[in-house]
């Protein structure tokens, strides 16, 4: 069997990170679950944000988890893809906005 860096079954073991550092792991999971509770933003909106960020940080585990989470919440595939585009737009914008730095540097160095 070929070995890969990512194994989907590892997602189920996520909670085990507390075994090697209970205090920090527990604090993280407490924080994590609190973040995704209903608040000024709905849990549904937060799920879509999480899905978009999952793509931007290119986390396959997160993509699996928040696609499933979206399905469980009745979020449609069109909504999910729009969220991914929003993330992608910010990500590509973040690259492109550095073009201004390039332009500034170019102009400064040029006669």
């Amino acid at each position, binding site marked *: 069997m070929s070995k890969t860096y990512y194994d*989907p*079954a590892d997602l*189920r073991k996520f909670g085990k990170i507390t075994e090697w550092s209970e205090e920090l792991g527990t604090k993280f999971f407490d924080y994590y679950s609190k973040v995704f509770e209903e608040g000024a933003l709905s849990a*549904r909106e937060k799920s879509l944000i999480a899905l978009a960020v999952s793509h931007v940080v290119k986390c396959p585990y997160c993509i699996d988890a928040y696609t*499933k989470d979206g*399905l*469980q*919440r*009745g979020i*449609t595939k069109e909504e999910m893809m729009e969220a991914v585009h929003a993330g992608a737009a910010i990500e590509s914008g973040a690259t492109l906005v550095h073009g201004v730095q390039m332009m500034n540097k170019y102009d400064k160095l040029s006669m």
Partner: protein
Amino acid sequence: MSEAKTKQSLHKRNDQLANANRQLEILSNGIFASGELPRFADKIAEIGHTTLRPNKLEILQINVGYMCNQVCEHCHVDAGPDRKEIMTRETMQQCLEVIKKTGAHTLDLTGGAPEMNPNFRWFVEEASKAGIKDFIVRSNLTIIRANKKYYDLPDFFKKHNVHVVSSMPHWTRGKTDKQRGNGVFDKSIKALQELNERGYGMPGSSLRLDLVYNPSGAFLPGNQASMEKDFKKALLEDFNIQFHHLFAITNLPISRFLDYLIASENYEDYMYALVEAYNPEAVANVMCTNTISVSWDGWLYDCDFNQMLDLKVASKVKHISEYNEELLQDRNIIISQHCYGCTAGAGSSCQGTVA
């Protein structure tokens, strides 16, 4: 999954999963090398249950036949147009005698499409005289628009103050038709509008209309209250439809849903998802503790799922013809790995979440 495959029941196709023993074998042993799941019996032992025992009987659920005009991909009954199992009037008569003397406050008629049983209307008329507090008919909605002979069903339901409970997997056409068949969404919308016109589902109306949400795939249902809010908003804005409550139900790994899980290679993950979502607080309220399920041929089961797995009640009384509530109450409920489905998350029953 090919369309041709989904148009026939597992029974018609002589599929191995049409055999209840084969399903139990898969559920008990798993089919993947790494799929060694904890036993449900051990899980409930952790909270002090050596077995499950029934509480007071509240719901008598009667399956009047497996015949259906739909062939839904997730159907745990394996119902469809090719299923011919239908409750006879003789068995219905035996049910009526029980209905008259049982302490159950709810009568829950299910199928298949219960309306396709030729004796359905007679049975409803007779049963509605028995003083049952809540008389449920689980209607798939499309039956109301399937054929002229069913067009008056909304009026018939209203006349007998039937509580209509109908499946609706999503407020969008695509997801609904994918699970339940092409055209189901539009027909369901039309049927819901007709029920609304009769007063069903309207605020303050005593004509109860509830919807059932089953996830359209290998995932668990979301929060019932939140889903209800989304369903109500979408159906009202898009189609001016109203209803009372949404029951979020977990799909149990039985029959066609089990077939789907295996074929789509989701079985192992789904079973783990159920186990990980196991909620001890749901155990005390699972529906088998207050329900008796009667099959089309009169056999008695702890629940609809045990019926499909042919796990008859562990009692001297096994058939409606020999019904004895006192004897039946003194039994152990039969459990297996599929019971994780009713104890996952907020729990699941035919009336939605339980915890």
